[in-house]
């Protein structure tokens, strides 16, 4: 190495991989990144509008915590996003690039809506809300499972590319929703109104007298279950082995095909559950936009949290906080919606970007070369 330096000039900066970084230091880097992102956002705000950045940040916090309704909205969004994130986590941990959470959620939601729609036509008011909810739950989960397992089977048996496959399944799901809405809505407006507005049949009941609380509780339980499943169960262990190295899995005799299919069944089922929660517990209707891109945001949530379910609570809440906050400043300050998207983008960029500094160390060339 020494003599090769004679020929090659040492570059000004070079990057080395950190093998070990104390946890405190890693969190310090993250904190610095967030502060830096807020500073940059502040500069952007000053440059493109006349507002005081502090005021904008205040509005952002206000938009999330200002009233009880806003807090509930934050909880509603977080629970939905967290649920989908929990769904994609086992698949991603197995290195199965499931980009189809969006479609799996849609199909789950569609199944729930279909149950509500057809029971209303068939039985009128003779079915109890709980019976209907159970039926919706079961069909949604099964439909999500089916949507998730199709690409898994293709991947396991014929080694097809799962990212393309799952991505394409999204569009099929979207078109299916469009088709059924057109079929169900006689006016041809293409918009499904709130189903069972009068009877509230098939709506998840309020808990603690609040809407959306049922969703929050279900997702909280799910978070704990998923943590235990990934950390302490044999299945979870197999998922990590397959994800880390398929060769090792083969070597110790893990049936890789079985693990892929089983994991995608679980992933799809939870996506279906998310669809059910959104329809039954929040929206009470179905639209093509039901998942609203959360199937993709969930991937980011999951990666940012390094597949740790409890960390995902924070990352998903943070993302929803940014989303709600940015629409609040867009409304309150009359700023363009794009501006708030820019701010969100900057913050997320800094947070993801700082991982680079956690994983790598930047060495700057010493000014004076040591004498040889």
């Amino acid at each position, binding site marked *: 190495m*020494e*003599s090769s330096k004679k020929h090659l000039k040492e570059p000004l900066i070079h990057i080395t991989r950190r093998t070990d970084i104390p946890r405190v230091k890693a969190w310090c880097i993250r904190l610095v990144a967030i502060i830096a992102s807020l500073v940059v956002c502040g500069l952007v705000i000053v440059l493109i509008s006349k507002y005081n950045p502090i005021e904008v940040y205040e509005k952002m916090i206000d938009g999330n915590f200002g009233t009880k309704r806003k807090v509930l909205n934050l909880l509603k969004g977080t629970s939905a996003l967290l649920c989908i994130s929990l769904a994609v986590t086992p698949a991603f941990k197995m290195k199965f690039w499931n980009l189809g959470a969006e479609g799996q959620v849609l199909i789950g939601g569609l199944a729930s809506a279909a149950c509500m729609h057809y029971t209303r036509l068939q039985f009128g008011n003779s079915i109890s809300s709980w019976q209907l909810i159970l039926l919706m739950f079961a069909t949604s989960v099964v439909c999500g499972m089916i949507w998730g397992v199709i690409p898994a089977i293709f991947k396991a048996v014929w080694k097809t590319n799962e990212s393309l496959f799952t991505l394409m399944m999204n569009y099929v799901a979207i078109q299916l929703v469009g088709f059924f809405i057109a079929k169900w809505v006689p006016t041809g407006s293409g918009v499904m109104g709130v189903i069972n507005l009068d009877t509230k049949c098939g709506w998840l009941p309020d808990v603690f007298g609040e809407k959306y609380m049922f969703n929050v509780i279900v997702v909280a339980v799910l978070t704990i279950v998923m943590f235990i499943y990934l950390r*302490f169960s044999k299945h979870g262990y197999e998922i*990590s082995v397959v994800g880390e190295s398929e060769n*090792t899995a*083969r*070597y110790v*005799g893990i049936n890789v095909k079985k693990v892929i299919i089983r994991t995608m069944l679980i992933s799809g089922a939870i996506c279906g559950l998310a669809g059910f929660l959104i329809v039954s517990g929040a929206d009470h209707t179905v639209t093509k936009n039901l998942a609203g891109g959360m199937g993709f945001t969930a991937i980011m949530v999951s990666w940012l949290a390094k597949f740790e379910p409890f960390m995902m609570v924070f990352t998903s809440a943070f993302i929803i906080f940014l989303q709600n906050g940015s629409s609040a400043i867009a409304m309150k300050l009359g700023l363009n919606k794009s501006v708030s998207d820019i701010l969100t983008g900057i913050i997320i960029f800094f947070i993801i970007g700082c991982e680079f500094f956690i994983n790598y160390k930047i060495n700057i060339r010493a000014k004076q070369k040591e004498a040889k």
Partner: protein
Amino acid sequence: MAIAAIELKNITKRFGKVVANNNVCLSAYKGEILSLLGENGSGKTTLMNMISGIYYPDEGQILIDGNEVVIRSPKDAFDHKIGMIHQHFKLIDVFNSTQNIVLGLEGEKHFSFKAAAKKTVLAVSRIPKNILRFFKSLVKTVKRIPRFPYFVAKFFKSAAKAVCSFFKSPEYAWHCLKTAAKTISEAYQTIMCPGYLKRAEKAVLEISKQYGFDLDPNKKIYEMSVSEKQTVEIIKVLYRGADILILDEPTAVLTPQETQKLFAVLRNMRDDGKAIIIITHKLHEVLSLSDKVAVLRKGEYIGTVNTAETNEAELTEMMVGKKISLNINRSEPKDPVDRLEVKNLCFVDSQGVKKLDNISFTAKSGEILGIAGIAGSGQRELLESIAGLQHVQSGEIIYHNPKTGEEDELCGKSPIKIRELGVRLSFVPEDRLGMGLVGNMDIVDNMMLRSYRKGKSMFLERKKPRNLAERIIKDLEVVTPSAQTPVRKLSGGNVQKVLVGREIASSPTVLMAAYPVRGLDINSSYAIYNLLNQQKESGVAVIFVGEDLDVLIELCDRILVISSGCVTGIVEGRGADKSEIGFMMTKANGGFSDGEQ
């Protein structure tokens, strides 16, 4: 003698502490085939990689036609007309051979921008003299480009539009800019490609004809056999005008017929005045093909001899050197009984290459059976077949169960099935972190790999693995911060101790270890030898795949030698002759004669 086409003077290359090449001198002449001979890890490939610009030597000089040159990149090597054909082909599957051959070349011979620019400059300098001639030559140059005016007009039109509309409507300007960029790429494709490829195809065919290759220039790579792919690689470097060709173990993947064909081609090239360096392990090929042989051993240059003046015995001795004593303990096997019997095992991999050909041997309890062979002779496939990781085509693997006294057939069974039969087979694979262990998991979780399935509970039981991990760390003196450290953070020797420790912990009756001391320092190596010896003394049938012949001879009770997937001999470890084993490792095999591809 004439000046050497390429001469290496005192080349030294180190990787950390390891000296891969030490003071190597070598010269190759035009019109000559030089064989580079050496055992595994003797530094042949490293040396050739330095000539072809992949590595940069720490010390020493490279001279081409007597002039010192600096080769920093493969491109530099090409500029000096050096072409290397690697063991692993670097081709794009969906392209045909011509496309692969011209890939990465800029411009073409018939129309190069550089030449055109030169001509233009020349013409401009003559303007005062002959203005007419300037325009004529300019027009002539431009005319050679098909549809040139069309593209120029389109490009300028959209570029102008972009500029005009820039302030009024940035979006439209952006669209125009995109059109302009597209025009350039379109122009590039229509101008450069069709005619260019046709001409290239012609040139490729000419080269094939000249040297006697057999190649369809329009065949896609994925439809090709291994030897056809190799042909493409060779023509690729010839097309680039290489005068010095380096081939890294070209015959390793070929059938005997294909090898003969390749040799005929190489001889044609030699007669055409090219300098050819061929890396190989096979002595008979060296003797039949080359004019000179250079031998490397453990990074040291041993010497160059004229092929006509040497024989296999001399070359083998140069290659393996004198026996070195290592003082590894070896006890007499205690009442050995047959434990694992392999009969007529054949295996063809997914590429259609025959990796194992009619392998038969018996491993006995209480002894270490060594497997010697050049790397890639089928050792890995053999062990993986026994472990149930490969689907073998034919043959039998019979396990004599010491508990029940029954004979179990292992062939065609998955690792789980083998376990369920009660066969206690342990396997230390060559690829430690990619197969034997999971790098990102800690030592405890890696301990569980073999045992996590035990019990009916859905949940993992981490207590026993934790105890096991702590026991292994203590007994084998694994240096680690804790049992919760990811194994990838451990050093090579410690990783291996963890792996071997786990495999031994399941008290096997058969223990297979592939290159267990590769990359380990002396102390760790001896620790591993001791572990293997302990296993042997407790009655385990140990199968040890090694690369260092001195170690094999001192450690093993019997040594099985394989060459190109065939058994070429079984010798007693005690009193074994190094050259004899070396000779068997490089011997040609009879079993390959029916080379169907």
